[in-house]
């Protein structure tokens, strides 16, 4: 499973630009993943969110955590292939701090329950060791749609 750490993110995620919200997978175990994303100053959404006071939209922080959760779910399959995980539910996610341009967000995702095709995942986002968002999400696996 550790070979995932050396693989290009496009080999792991079914997403493609401009909707890849993970740069690197840092740690992986059965049902657990740590990943990171550098939030660059020139991210397009900063132009509007907000002019002169840029910070990362909460929905995109959720997307970072959901993509990490998708990888965590796929670790429960031996070949880590064969399906796309869709975000189906966002349960009580809290946003505790703003994520500013030129920072690195680290996401942790732990699968806490599964009833395939549904997977409940505990997720957090951290910047500089401080939790910026946390909550639970439900991902649904759709078979056979892997890019």
């Amino acid at each position: 499973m550790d070979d995932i750490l050396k693989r290009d993110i496009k080999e792991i995620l079914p997403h493609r630009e401009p909707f890849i919200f993970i740069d690197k997978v840092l740690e992986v175990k059965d049902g657990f993943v740590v990943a990171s994303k550098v939030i660059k100053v020139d991210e397009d959404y900063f132009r509007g969110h907000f002019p002169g006071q840029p910070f990362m939209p909460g929905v995109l922080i959720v997307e970072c955590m959901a993509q990490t959760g998708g990888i965590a779910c796929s670790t429960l399959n031996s070949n880590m292939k064969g399906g796309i995980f869709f975000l189906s539910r966002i349960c009580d996610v809290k946003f505790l701090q703003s994520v500013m341009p030129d920072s690195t967000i680290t996401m942790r995702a732990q699968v806490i329950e599964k009833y395939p095709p549904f997977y409940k995942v505990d997720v957090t986002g951290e910047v500089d060791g401080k939790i910026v968002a946390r909550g639970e999400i439900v991902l649904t696996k759709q078979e056979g749609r892997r890019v």
Partner: protein
Amino acid sequence: MGETNQAELYDQVKRMIVKAVKLKIPAEKIENTKPLFGPEGIGLDSLDALELVIALEKEFGVRIPDREVGRQVLVSVETLVKFILEKKGG
């Protein structure tokens, strides 16, 4: 299991459903044989199945191992009660 205890179990399962999926109808309004899902049912959607599986294990210590079993058990309050009794040896 005596009739009183079984009636209490039915009530307990109904309360569990309401709490687990944040159902808008009171527990006592749920009929024992009314479908949980589908157009004729009490209004649960497919994602609620996961919440029921979690709640069943938490409240009654019984686990639905897969969707095959789930399709037979997550049908009505009555099928849930029968499953709990079967697993608990009642």
